[in-house]
């Protein structure tokens, strides 16, 4: 529980900053919604504190033992549909598990499968906007930002994909082979995560099944008895076919991004100015 309280404290601080920004920028509607969020977070903090003082019993035994991946928060109880964590931290948890840029829907599904709570994907759109606004007013003030993945050809935000700002640029650019490579990588991460849990929840197994259905040789005959190591092997096998070409393309695009783009654009993507309708910029 301690993590949750600390996360909430961080969240409250951030929300205070956000309220101030909204008020100063003269946006009463935004300020109102953020004030409401702040109030909710403060209430959640009070509740969490009350729970922590009452229950002298230690938290349930840790089931997820991630080492490299920061997924330390234990799986929430099954009777607890919503998470106390703010949306950005939930997105961060899921992305940290996947380790590749992903669409809001996959992020929500992963969070539901491994962290026991989900969120409406529509909220994610405003999250990215908020993150960008926050970065532009105070660059690098937060330890991480939920940011965009960049399309390799124009270095513009890739439609519908989210990433984490602390990842290397190579991971955040998307070439033509990258969607497949990232899909296979995500499948491997999900298989790894399932193996770490003694009794994986149904949602997690179903997620792995969905991955397996689109990877040749991953289903291993039985549809409902998908094995994590079979999925990993199959994904690895296909990954080895694409990996070289993909990483070459990504390295080249990442170099270009670091050379050409300012800090904010490196995180949130360059936008093509509608100057002339002759032709787009060179694809490199």
């Amino acid at each position, binding site marked *: 529980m301690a993590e949750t309280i600390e996360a909430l404290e961080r969240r409250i601080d951030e929300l205070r900053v956000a309220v101030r920004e909204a008020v100063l920028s003269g946006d009463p509607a935004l300020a109102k919604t953020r004030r409401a969020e702040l109030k909710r977070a403060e209430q959640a903090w009070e509740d969490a504190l009350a729970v922590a003082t009452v229950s002298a019993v230690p938290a349930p035994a840790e089931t997820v033992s991630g080492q490299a991946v920061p997924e330390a928060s234990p799986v929430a109880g099954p009777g607890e549909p919503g998470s106390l964590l703010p949306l950005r931290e939930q997105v961060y948890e899921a992305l940290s598990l996947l380790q590749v840029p992903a*669409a809001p*829907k*996959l992020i929500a599904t992963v969070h539901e499968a491994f962290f026991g709570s989900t969120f409406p994907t529509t909220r994610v759109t405003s999250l990215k906007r908020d993150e960008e606004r926050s970065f532009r007013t105070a660059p690098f003030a937060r330890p991480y930002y939920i940011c965009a993945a960049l*399309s*390799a*050809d*124009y*270095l*513009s*935000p*890739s*439609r519908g994909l989210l990433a984490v700002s602390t990842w290397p640029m190579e991971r955040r650019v998307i*070439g*033509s*082979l*990258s*969607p*497949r490579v*990232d*899909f296979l990588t*995500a499948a491997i991460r999900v298989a790894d995560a399932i193996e770490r849990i003694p009794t994986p929840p149904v949602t997690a197994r179903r997620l792995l099944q969905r*991955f397996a*259905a*689109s*990877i*040749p040789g991953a289903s291993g005959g039985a549809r409902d008895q998908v094995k994590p190591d079979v999925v990993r092997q199959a994904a690895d096998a*296909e990954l080895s*076919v*694409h990996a070289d*070409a993909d990483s070459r*393309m990504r390295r080249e695009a990442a170099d270009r991004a670091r050379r050409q783009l300012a800090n904010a654009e490196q995180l949130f*993507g*360059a*936008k*093509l100015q*509608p100057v002339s*309708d002759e*032709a*787009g*910029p060179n*694809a490199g």
Partner: protein
Amino acid sequence: MNSDQPPGPVEARLDRLRGRALPVNHNARTISALAANPGCPRRALMDAAGVDKQKIAAHIGYPAPFGQSRFAIGRGNAFEARVKENGAAQLLALLREHLDLDVTEVGYTDFNDVAGNPSRELRHVRTRQALTGQDFAPRTLFDHPLLRLRVGGRHAYLEPDLIALRLDGSFHVIEIKSFPVIDGQADAGKVAAAAIQSAVYVRALRDLIAEAGGDPGRVSHETILIAPRDFASQPVAVSVDVRKQLGVLDRQLVRMTKIADLLEPCPATLTFDLDPDRDGTPRRPREELAAALALVPASYAPECLTTCELCFACRAEAAGSTGALGKSVREDLGGIEYTAQALALARGQLPSAEQAEIAVLLLRAAQLREQLLGEVFP
């Protein structure tokens, strides 16, 4: 098709037909609707001029509830998003099986916008660059490329759901639809509509490849329809041969370039202008507009009800003619134009020389009816 574009005067007359309204753009749906009733001069002319048929129909008192329902669109988009999520993983699995794609063929490129800019010109330029191989990224799946087709002297932009390019250089048009394929069977009308829509894309893609100096034969006439299997949302792929639809479409497109012949019998002053006021409310007298419409002959058929905004107006106009009852009735009653005439012959009116044959048949039919029902033919 580029050589015989309509010359200036035709364009001017078409502009006059349309009046002050902005031209309505063609899309795959409207182009495929053209092919559904190729013999209709009214539709051909109004579409060539880009007239907003829906508004005209509403103003003369025959509004047609046209366009897809919001729910159908929502369902369609949700299914398409599901099939295309995670780098089109589900779709790729299907296509690997169906098109024999190699394991290396996984390149996926999104053409929904160009660097966040959704301008159609830009998207088309980018599509052209990518499809004609001016950049060398490994591409297999093209998500929502933007093609262009010349229809009646104007470019219509078309957006196929997906185009797949195989290693051997052949292109396949892929259409994602949300009507179910149950036990290997789907609604025939819907499949036909999807086929003609795919044919429109094949045509546009062939034009694009040919313009770039490539071989248009690389675009396969085997298109692929992706639809939900049975009652679940699992997709299934079905091959659809669109050669026949391409033939119909080509004929209709050639016809549209010969729009001058259709214009000829119409008076030079003919216009479908609605004379809108500042808020866009039409001020033109209803009777006047209806009279203008009547100057262009229509060929109504029951199929129009599913494809044309003017269907109710044309149906009212065609009431009493044998054609309004459908192609098969018209053919059975060869040479008789009005139902009243057919009934008169059945009652025993003396036929003219060329109607003698059909008159005998009609008399016989009336007799049979009397015997069976025991009532006198009215």
